[in-house]
Every structure is written in C-alpha cells, then in structure tokens.
C-alpha cells in the first residue's frame, strides 16, 4: 500500500465531488431544501394536533382528564358525541379522536375494565402519532400522580413534544445517504468509464483498487459530513436529538456502505449514463416512498408494510429514528443493524460480480 498514491487519489476524488455542481446540488442542496420547505410549512411553532374528545364516562376522573388535555397547547380540543366526532375525523377535521368509554375510571387498566380508545386519522399519520404519544404521556403522568404506580412504557415521554421535524430528520438522513451512494457514484463513475478517463488511469502502474478505495472513502466522509449538516439544520428547526451522535455516525456509515456498493454495482454494469439512470431510479424511488422517509409506515397496508420491512432504507431509517427520537442503544436496533449488514454483504457481492472497468 502506497499512501501517497492513495492520498493523492483521495484528494482528487474529494475535489472532483466538491467541484461538481450537479452532485452537490442533488446530494446536499436538495435534502436541505426539503428540510427548509417542511420546516417553514410545519414547524414555525409547535405542531398542533386537532383532537376530538368523546366523554361517555362523565365522571370526575374523566372530567379531570379532559381538563388536563385542554392545558396541552399542542392539542386543539373539540368535545363532541361519538358519531359526530368520528364523522369529523372522516371529513379530515380531526387528527385524532379520543373516546372515554362509559364506566371508565382513571386508573391503570385491568382486564375487563373499559380502556381509553383513540382513533387516528390515517391520512394524517404524523399528527396521529404525535397525538397518540402525548395522550399516553399525559394519561401515564396522571395515573402516576394518582398514586397508582408509574407506567413504565411512558416514563420517558413527559416533557417531550415530538413534532414532524423529529420524524422527518432521520428520514432525510437516510434518504440523503441513499442518494449519495446511488447517484453520485453511479453517475460520476459511469461518466469516467464512458469518456475513457478511467482507462487513462490504468495506463499508469497504479492498481485500480487505489482509485476505488479513494472513491469509496471520499464518499463516506462526504456522507458523514452531510449527517452533521442535516442534524445541525434539524436542531435549528427544533429537533429533539436524544441519542448518541457516535451511534448515529456508525449507523450512517453502515448504511452508506450498502448504497455505495449498490451504486458501484450499477456503475460497474452500466456502459453509460443512459443505462445507469433508470436503474438507479428503479432502486431509489420505491424506497423513497416506502421506507418511511416522509410518512410513517404505520399508514401503509399490512402486506405492503411486511414486504417493505426488509428494504435497506427501512432498516436504516428505523435505526436512525430510534436513536434520534428515543435515544436507544445498539441493543435495541440490533435487528436493523443485522438487516443492514446482510444487505451490505449482498450488495457487495453483486457489485463485485457486475463490475467491469471498461
């Protein structure tokens, strides 16, 4: 290994990326733009969840619960009857409808006693999700305050008000890493192949492996830089980052490796950009919409969710989201990491099989 050779190729790869306006536009500017647009649209202030409340119990406890909900600024409260509120939800005027059933008592639910039911609006999954988390938190807090013992599952929720930005940022991170791996590699590399610049490189005594290593490592560094930039912008928009940055970088690195390998597979197979473009889009488009970048995957039909559970970006997004939103450790995302490792291995093998220098 001659470090000077590697280093000069690394610097060249880095310069080439930074000076390529199209590459910069798609891999850095577009994700930022998406975040800015959603930032301006959705989180100028805190997220509002339109909540219908149907109090069929009509007890002191249920009154106390409704009053408590009224104090939460995130909730735009609409008391009403069961049928009227559900009709409002179907019309799209409610994000979430909470039903306090007759006979409900404000205590830890036991078998057979009626529990709280909340109906979420499927077309507003983020609000429904945020509202659901808040409801659980508030009820949990009240139960704990009533001396009934804390509900472990909701202990970490009080005080946090998750907004769409909290959902979006991890998704955008995953999306960006995917785009960087797929597009910057497949387009850039195929261009070098088509013009003969790659061939010119092999007229020197340097092994092609040096160039490949330089390209991969420069892309990894650029990807990790993007993670920092996007997290920074996210924090500025009020992102609640509770997880470990180091773990996030580790997950991002593993994710990047998958998509770089797929990108090199495409670049190695394709003869020109016209062959690379449709293939790269074929890989990236389904994942953009089915792997939980912009929308919660809870809203998807069960069969589609089952299939798309196994997509590499689904693993990546879920792992990133768990760490960003819930601050989990490696153990809690071991399944995601395993899925990503398997994908990385598959993509690497396919890339090696398909790769042709000329």
């Amino acid at each position, binding site marked *: 290994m001659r470090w000077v050779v590697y280093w000069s*190729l690394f610097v060249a790869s880095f310069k*080439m990326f930074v*000076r390529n306006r199209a590459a910069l536009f798609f891999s850095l500017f577009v994700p930022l733009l998406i975040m800015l647009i959603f930032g301006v649209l959705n989180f100028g202030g805190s997220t509002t969840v339109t909540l219908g409340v149907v109090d069929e119990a009509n007890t002191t406890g249920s009154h106390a619960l409704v009053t408590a909900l009224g104090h939460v600024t995130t909730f735009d409260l609409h008391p009403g009857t069961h049928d009227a509120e559900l009709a409002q939800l179907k019309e799209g005027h409610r994000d979430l409808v909470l039903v306090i059933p007759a006979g409900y008592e404000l205590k830890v639910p036991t078998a057979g006693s009626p529990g709280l039911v909340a109906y979420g609006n499927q077309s507003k999954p983020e609000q429904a999700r945020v509202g659901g988390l808040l409801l659980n938190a508030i009820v949990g807090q009240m139960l704990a305050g009533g001396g009934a013992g804390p509900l472990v599952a909701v202990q970490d929720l009080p005080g946090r008000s998750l907004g769409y930005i909290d959902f979006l940022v991890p998704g955008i991170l995953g999306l960006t890493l995917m785009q960087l791996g797929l597009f910057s590699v497949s387009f850039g590399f195929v261009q070098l192949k088509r013009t*003969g610049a790659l*061939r*010119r490189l092999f007229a020197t*005594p340097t*092994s092609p492996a040096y160039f490949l290593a330089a390209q991969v490592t420069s892309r990894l560094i650029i990807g990790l830089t993007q993670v920092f930039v996007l997290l920074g912008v996210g924090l500025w928009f009020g992102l609640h980052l509770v997880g470990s940055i180091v773990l996030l970088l580790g997950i991002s690195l593993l994710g990047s490796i998958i998509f770089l390998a797929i990108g090199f597979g495409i670049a190695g197979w394709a003869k020109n950009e016209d062959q690379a473009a449709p293939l790269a889009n074929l890989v990236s488009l389904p994942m953009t919409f089915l792997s939980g970048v912009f929308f919660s995957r809870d809203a998807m039909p069960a069969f589609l969710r089952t299939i798309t559970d196994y997509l590499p970006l689904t693993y990546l997004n879920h792992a990133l989201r768990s760490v960003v939103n819930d601050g989990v450790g490696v153990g809690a995302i071991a399944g995601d990491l395993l899925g990503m490792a398997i994908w990385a291995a598959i993509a690497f093998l396919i890339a090696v099989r398909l790769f042709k220098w000329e």
Partner: protein
Amino acid sequence: MTSWLTTDAPHHQGAPKPIVQVHDLRKRYGTLQAVDGVSFEITEGEVFGILGPNGAGKTTTLEMIEGMRTIDSGTAIVDGVDVAKDPRGVKARIGIQLQASSFFDELNLLELLELFGHLYGRRVDAKELLVDVELSEKARSQVRTLSGGQKQRFSIAAALVNDPRVLFLDEPTTGLDPQARRHLWGLVRQIRDRGHTVVLTTHYLEEAEELCDRVAIMDGGKIVALDQPLALIDALLARGFTKERVERLANLEDVFIDLTGHTLRED
C-alpha cells in the same frame, strides 16, 4: 513554432539497441484475428510509425505492448521487461497517450499532472511540463475548455510525467487542422531530441514520411512492410511503379498552409 518545421532535428546515431522487441504477437476477438503474428524491433531514440487503414490492428498491437490489453500469444519486451509477466513494470517505464484521451473534468491541468505524477510515485514539476507543451497560460483551466490541439498536447504532457523510456502516441493528430498537426510534429521531434523513443500510429502518410525514422505498414493484422519511409518509396519505384499523373511540386495542403499560415488557431 515555425522553426520546428524547417529545422531538421539531429538524428541519434551510434550503436543502435532495441528498446522494444515484439515477437509473433497475436490477438483474436471472437472470429476476428485482429493481430496475426506481428514481429518487429524498435531502436532506442527513433520515432517508429505504425501505419495502416482502420481495423488493420494498429491500436490493438500498441495496446498489447503497453500492457493495456492481454496478449493471446507471442511476446513483447519493453526496456527489458516482459509485458505479459509484468504489465505494471512496463507501464512504469513508458508514457501512454490513448486514442481518445480523457481526464477528470473537475481538476485543472496542474492538478492533473501532479496527480498523474503521484500515480508513478513521482513529484513532478507540472508548470515546467506545461511550458514544454506550450500550455502555461492554461495551467488553471480544465481539459474540457481546451481546443483539439491543446488537448492532444496536454495528453502528451500527461504521458511524460514519468520521464518515460518510450512514449506511445495513438493517432495523436487525428481530427486536428493542418496548423495544429504541424505544431504537434514539432513537439514530437522535440521529445525525440531529448532522447525519448517515440512509437506512434497514424493514417496520415505524409505525417509518417515527415516524422518517422522507420514505419511498419499493417493490413489485416499483419505487417506487410517495414523500413525507412524513403527506402519503401525507392523499393516501390524500383519495382517499376509510375504514377498516372505526375506529382506537382506542391499539393493542396501546401496551398492551404500558404494561404492560412502556420499560426495555431485555438479558440
């Protein structure tokens, strides 16, 4: 620039020794025998031309000697190194200008030459190299902004970063206007005068006559003639060859150069 055309460069004399030895080289693509038993030797310090119509096997022959293409059978030895056994060793000793040379778009000429120097494990004086090929004023430009002749000159500069024993030029003047072509001839002579051996392919016969000490004419993957240009012409005349029309003392290219001058047009 014009002095290069009129000044006849001094030829290297003395004990000639072969720097490239090619023996019975063959290459087949499917049913096409692209190179069919080619043998020749190139003497150190000479400009050696490989001529032939398209598809004659010139480029394939060149690329096998350069280590850019695998050899089916036969041997090619460059500066004592067997290409088949040590292609990287050969690449380290030679400079290669490919037929369609292309470089990284986002890097400027200085950066590219420095990078290529590193690929040979050398630190090069990129500015000096650009002076040699008269591209100093383009040092911070990208290759895509260069004219055809400038691109070819840059491509030659990139092939010189390792101070090669043999410089291979594959159709260096194809697509250039007469002024740029003559300018490049001057550059090739300069390189030869510094002691580099030059091997080039061309299908401009007057270029071969002008530049090459010896030429090999290829057709159908075989060498059909190999000698000094004038010797080949004399041999043809000795066989009783006469032109149907007597050659005038000037041709249309001379008229063209006379009317438009030797000055390079590079926009």
